[in-house]
């Protein structure tokens, strides 16, 4: 309060001085002083605004770099979730790859040996993209690995997986399509569940057969039932499991790569190593779209070798 009185008094005094001395200096002095103070203030305010803009720009660059580092770290973690090597025993050889559209992916594949010589493999596509899909993907990865080792029936496994995904994603209404297969090398039989996933392509003795038994995508309904399909396979038979990012790759004119083109391509290179087929397919899909990929592309190839039954 006292301060305000001091300052007010000084300002009043200044006003009085101004009045008393109004005719004692040249008119040009008034103009010069006025312009000096006004110009300095204007320049000062402009400089402050510029400083503010630059500071915000610097902060947003910093934030962007931080987020980029986080995404890169998430990408590294996610890559570590994919199998580093595939089981060599069991009568199936594998090749698989996931090419994310946005650094981290909502697609998932896995191959894991089970306790009694069976081999399980899966490919899933989480709805949406980016970080949220990647988090769900890692959760699905962990739960599926646990269930695959404890639940013997693929249908039951998918029901439990469905319930889990439904519970953790409500009310966000996220879901996942999944193809889950269990290969028994002893009788060369593939048991599978297709939970709303694009139909895998079967080449060889079972060519043309549709692997469509299963149920709705995981996480859509609480109590979904999943049927199990059975397919006997012969040495040399090849299964191509893929995410829709491969077949829905579009030309700039909007034409999709399509399942037929994928099947023809794999059939043409059937005798080649799986890694070569994988390279050819992904290269063709990328060339087809002719631009940056807009959806995650995941491809899992499995081929029956003669090994398992001979061992039995």
């Amino acid at each position, binding site marked *: 309060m006292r*301060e*305000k009185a*001091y*300052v007010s008094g*000084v*300002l009043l005094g*200044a*006003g*009085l*001085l*101004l*009045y*008393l*001395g*109004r*005719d*004692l*200096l*040249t008119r040009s*002095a*008034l103009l*010069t*002083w*006025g312009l*000096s*103070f*006004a*110009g*300095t*203030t204007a*320049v*000062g*305010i402009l400089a*402050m*605004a510029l*400083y*503010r803009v630059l*500071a915000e720009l610097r902060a947003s660059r910093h934030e962007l770099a931080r987020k980029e580092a986080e995404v890169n770290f998430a990408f590294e973690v996610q890559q570590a979730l994919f199998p580093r090597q595939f089981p060599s025993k069991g009568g199936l050889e594998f090749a698989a790859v996931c090419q994310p559209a946005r650094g981290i992916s909502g697609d998932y594949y896995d191959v894991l040996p089970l306790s009694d010589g069976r081999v399980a493999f899966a490919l899933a596509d989480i709805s949406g993209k980016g970080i949220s899909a990647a988090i769900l993907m890692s959760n699905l990865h962990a739960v599926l690995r646990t269930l695959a080792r404890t639940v013997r029936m693929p249908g039951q496994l998918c029901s439990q997986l469905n319930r889990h995904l439904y519970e953790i994603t409500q009310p966000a209404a996220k879901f996942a399509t999944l193809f889950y297969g269990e290969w028994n090398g002893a009788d060369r039989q593939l048991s599978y569940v297709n939970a709303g996933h694009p139909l895998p392509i079967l080449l060889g003795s079972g060519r043309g057969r549709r692997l469509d038994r299963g149920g709705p995508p995981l996480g859509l309904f609480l109590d979904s039932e999943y049927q199990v399909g059975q397919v006997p396979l012969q040495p040399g038979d090849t299964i191509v499991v893929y995410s829709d990012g491969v077949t829905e790759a579009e030309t700039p004119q909007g034409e999709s790569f399509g399942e037929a083109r994928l099947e023809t391509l794999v059939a043409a290179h059937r005798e080649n190593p799986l890694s070569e087929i994988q390279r050819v397919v992904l290269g063709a899909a990328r060339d087809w779209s002719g631009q940056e990929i807009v959806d995650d592309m995941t491809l899992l190839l499995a081929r029956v070798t003669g090994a398992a039954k001979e061992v039995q």
Partner: protein
Amino acid sequence: MTVGSLGLRDHVRLLAPLFALIAAVWALRLVLHAAGAPRAIVRLSSVTVAGAVSVLLAVVLMHFRRLGRYSNVIVATILLVFWTQLLIVLAIAFAAVTGVQNVFAAAEYSPPHASGALPHIVGHLTFGLGFGILVGSAMACLTLWTLRRLVPVESERQGSF
């Protein structure tokens, strides 16, 4: 007298570099004029502009040192304007006493119809001080207000007088 958390001596200590800046410009102006430099160059080393810039710098300095209360910047303005006018008056008085002319006592800057240096000195001590304090304070407060909004400093007490 204490304003905010600063006494008058603290204000003077804080503003010492700005007093030096104004004095340097004042001396430069004197030297340039005495050396017969072109008029345009002499006008460039303006003590008035140096005073205005010093007020701006004082506000920025006080704001970033978290001393930026309106009352503090007004006190700083008064001190800087007083120093500016004091230097000018000293130069005019020196010319009057010694008879050695300088730029501050030149006819073009002296009041019209005035006889002698006294009305000129009184003009600076009245109109010069009054104008500088009023307009300078307004400028300082506006600058501080803008600074608080555009470049806020942490733990700043917004709206404090």
